[in-house]
């Protein structure tokens, strides 16, 4: 089943950091579409919930050095 989830990352410190997170998330298995916005810190992920889960996404964002918050 395709699901959509949102996170907030309030501590992006440069526009390219947001793009790096976007790329990292889009490489995760089961992720269909990712949008990461530097200006608002909003992360929107469309994914297949039989393959991917929220914890993986949070981990991915944290690995990049940022703090995901539930939207």
């Amino acid at each position: 089943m395709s699901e959509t989830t949102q996170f907030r990352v309030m501590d992006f410190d440069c526009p390219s950091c947001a793009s790096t997170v976007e790329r990292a998330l889009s490489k995760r298995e089961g992720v269909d579409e990712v949008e990461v916005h530097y200006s608002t810190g909003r992360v929107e992920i469309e994914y297949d919930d039989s393959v991917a889960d929220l914890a993986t996404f949070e981990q991915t964002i944290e690995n990049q050095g940022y703090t995901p918050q539930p939207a």
Partner: protein
Amino acid sequence: MDTQSVKQYYRKHRKAIIVAVSGLLYASGWTLGYVSAFDTASAAILILAAIVGGYDIAKTAYHEVTSRTLGIKTLVTLAAVGAIAIGSYWEAAAVVFLFALGSYLEGRTMRKTRNALEELLEMTPDTATVRRDGEQKEVPAREVEAGEIVIVKPGEKIPVDGDVVEGESAVNQAPVTGESAPVHKADGDEVYAGTINQEGSLEVRTTGSGTDTTLQRIIQRVEAAQEAQSKTESIIDRFAKYYTPGVIALSIGAYAVTQNAILSLTLLVIGCPGALVIGPPVSIVSAIGNAARNGVLMKGGEHLEQAGKIDLVAFDKTGTLTKGETTVADVEGFGVADDEVLELAAIAEKKSEHHLADAIVAAAQDRPTAAADGGTAAVRADTEPASTDAHSIPDPDDFDVVAGKGVIAHYEVSGEAGGSSDGSDGGWEIVVGNRKLLDERGIDIPDEVAEYVREREDRGETVVHIVRDEAVIGTIAMRDELREAAPGVIDQLQDAGIETVMLTGDNERVAAAVAREAGFTGLQERGGEAATQEVGIDDYRAELLPEDKQDVVEGLREDHTAAMVGDGINDAPSLATADVGIAMGAAGTDTAIETADMALMADDLERIPYAVKLSKATRWNIYENVGLAVLTVTVLLAGVLTSYVTLALGMLVHEASVLAVIANGMRLLRH
């Protein structure tokens, strides 16, 4: 403190801790460096400082490289590693520490900008008191269903969108519309989630809850606007993509030529595109956030930049400059009782949806029932019994609208009396219309009537003629009061060097009177055909049919960046045609919010000069930021090439320029 909470504390403040530790190590390493005996210890501590501060940066740089995006962190990592490799430990530690500190401060200040909308979100209460099965129950606000009755006590925030069904109160709508004065709400009035009930207790029938409220839609809209890239932003983004690899190439080239490692590493650091890429989004996000809190929704950075160039504002007259509440000012019968004139006009206009028609019908209904007096022979005997309060108007037998001119209706008077002159259908032909319609139909306007009409029109009133079977029997003069704020707003715009134009379907004389009252200056005397005349400035265009307005706006755009202010529904085509379409009173109408480039949530004209000034300030702010960024890089580059700027100094100035750009952009939050 147990280990769990220490861990949590660390996770939460990780960045600050890293910056602090790296800074302390850097300071002690630097101090030790002054004592020659401790050279090795100093070097070790400085390397440690670079590793502590640089670990996260290097990790991101690794991700940047593996995902083929060369970013600022790649440059910084290269510079630090390079500095260590050539033994410049102090430089390496300084670069890393300054960059980590800068990033931490950038993240913190951006968080503030990103939070500008948070206070709007917090406006909505979490719980609502609903009436279920005859009992009052406290439930989560998002679980209230449409149709349920919510009770809101004085001083409480309204938890849902809905219509008042019981009670009366003053409601502070600032969170949604930006209006500071409370608005009176009674039976049937619409209220919005997040607004504050100030005086009386209200019962509200829910129309939307949870994410389906006006406030939520505003927030989503504002976020979408903040995320949409403006032209400047996408140009800079595209530029930055080639810029970073370019800087690396330049640095390698410089090393090849000069063999000076420090010089080429310094080039890496100062070449970071920080301030340039951060500037425009910070300005735009701040401005859009500020506007949202003041009841102005901007569609996006693109539109904001465009709005900054506005040099002409066209206003639709009815409902924009005026209150849009047309009322009958005077009914004058010529050889016929005033009441009968009004009654016949109301019958003819009953099925019309024009705002003038509504005013006539409302005025006729408001008259006390006059069934007993002979003047109302027109009232059909077989219509429903006249009610005591509202007077009912019979339907016409048929009616035709002549767009922009009036209506032609037929009405058969039952039984005796009346009767048409030609007798073919046994009824009356009633024409309610302007001079154009009468001329078209070859109906003579007596001098007495024409003079009366002129007199009313000079006061800014719209007059219609009532014709029964080809003879003018009376006139109805209608008035739509100017908004109190209109003259001040026109004045403010003109003072700011912005031209103003009023567009209206009214005739020349009425338009001139209203334009004069509103303070449109530079009025010129002119003949009929106003719409086809040459474009004047600070002017008005009269006698425009709805489709003409779009053409006029198109024409204005030839020499101007033109904004058009209208209601967002009737004026939708001209709003779409204008460079910047501004819809007023958009709180209740989602289409207006969707289509307009700028939507004023309240019917508050004062927001227009505010929005125009904010847009101009934003445009300047973006220029300032881009200018500052380019200037910094140029000066630094010159400094590096002439060896005045070292690695650490380069990083310091670079980070300072980034913070300066953010601080400058954030000024727009408090514009």
